[in-house]
């Protein structure tokens, strides 16, 4: 089953803890005080944005028919059929920004310094999304997909 991130917008207070733990979780040392001293500062792959009094964490939703995969000229973006996730291979990526140009949610942003797209990988390295784990109001939930 595909797991995905869900957001209970009523509970989101826009405290941006998710953004912070996302950065730390993707840093080399995985510790805030040291992470901010790393040469390549990691950008958050989730961003909270407000509209009409509600807060919306915006991040990659690992679309099944992902437009970013079609657009990728380097075959750096692929769909992992087992995990049901969009995988990005940094080694193959050439930083052309085609994926940024086609993401229907604006959930892929350019990291101009690192020349790679910033997008959610469900914290593949750590094993569980740090945003969901750390959200103080439990507004971010990582659970099995309920169907598109």
């Amino acid at each position, binding site marked *: 089953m595909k797991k995905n991130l869900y957001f209970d917008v*009523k*509970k989101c207070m826009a405290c941006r803890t998710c953004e912070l733990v996302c950065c730390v979780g993707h840093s080399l040392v995985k510790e805030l005080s040291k992470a901010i001293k790393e040469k390549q500062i990691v950008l958050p792959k989730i961003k909270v944005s407000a509209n009409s009094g509600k*807060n919306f964490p915006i991040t990659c939703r690992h679309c099944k028919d992902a437009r970013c995969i079609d657009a990728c000229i380097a075959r750096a973006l692929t769909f992992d059929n087992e995990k049901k996730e969009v995988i990005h291979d940094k080694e193959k990526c050439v930083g052309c920004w085609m994926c940024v140009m086609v993401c*229907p949610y604006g959930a892929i942003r350019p990291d101009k310094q690192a020349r790679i797209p910033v997008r959610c990988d469900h914290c593949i390295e750590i094993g569980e999304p740090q945003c969901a784990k750390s959200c103080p109001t439990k507004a971010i939930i990582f659970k099995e997909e309920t169907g598109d």
Partner: protein
Amino acid sequence: MKHIYIIGNSAAAISAVESIRLHDQESQITIISEEEYPAYGRCLISYLLAGDIPESKLNLRPADFYQQNKVDLLLGKKVVELSVKKRRVTLDDGEKKEFDVALIATGARPDMPEIKGIGKQGVSGFRTLNETKELISIATFAKAACVLGGGLIGLKAAYALKKRGLNVLVIVKSKHVLSQVLDDLGAKMVGRHLEAKGIEILIDQDVSEIIGNGQVRAIKLLSGKAIEASIVIVGKGVKPNIQFLKESGINTDFGILTNEYLETNVQGIFAAGDVCQSFDLVRGAAFINALWPNAVEQGRIAGLNIVGKNLKYIGSLSLNAVEFFGLPIVSMGLKKAEPGCETLEASNGKAQIYKKFILKDNHLKGFIGIGNIKNSGIFLRMIREGVDISSVKNDLLSDSFSYAKVMDLFGKDGLYSNYQEQK
């Protein structure tokens, strides 16, 4: 059992194979390609020329892709004729092959102008891996290169050769580089950026002759001036590969004309990719937007229609994302306002930031982003889906613009459905 022939072996072809095989394991599939390589990332040849990536990174699929998908691969063979009546293709070695269904995915080739000396060694289009390898071998001992044409291909070539340490001069016929991709202000910004990085740009000029004894030594400008160069790259647009269809009875214009199912006027013969003149969403007319994502999407739809899915292709639009020396650029749809259009724009020349939206009757028709390209996928969607954006017009230029501001426009789509209010 059906025998499907795919002519061409690139973005459109590969994507077609994958969608056919999702539904049909039985039919025989044969791919014929003039190039002798398994499918590779054509858009990556400028990175290869620059020395940014090794050749091994060009592979689009694992080595066993064709075997896994039960595809007979005929490499290094060119289709020289297609007979609709006999449902048969003739190869350049004289061999004839019969098909039940065909997909023409032959792409395009550089449009080489008729300039004296264009055939000299060192003068090249910039389209294939072989051309790139040849260019790399010359570039290792060359000092100077000229690029004819200031479009995306020309500038990508210029960027690559500059990164290799050559002196590069780009000769542009019009008043600006990227005249098809950007408006004047955007083009000036990018032009200045390239010049600051050491690429010379000569506007309002053209080449009258290529000089050299077998090997190019210099180019001669219309003004009469000669400029030394041991490499000349021609980036003056592309032409669809349709020569072999001349007598076939398949309808062509600039490219192959298809209906909305990407089928030609001949039943069971489809076209996709750079060769296919399908529908342009913004122009509202048949047009080729020769781009990688369009080729992939068209290949998929043609493939699915080959297995009888009857899918309509909504059309393509002009679409570009590129980066030159740290400056990201996105452009889509209209670049210059037409009569009756409304323009919203903000620019900061010093910070190298430019954003421009072109609207018609409160519908987005075009977007240019330089320096800041965030959210451009949302703008693309606005154009593709043709939504009325009057309610969010004032947010477009704002730094706090995001999907949250516009999600109601698109109905309950993918990400929207992930916003759930729990009890």
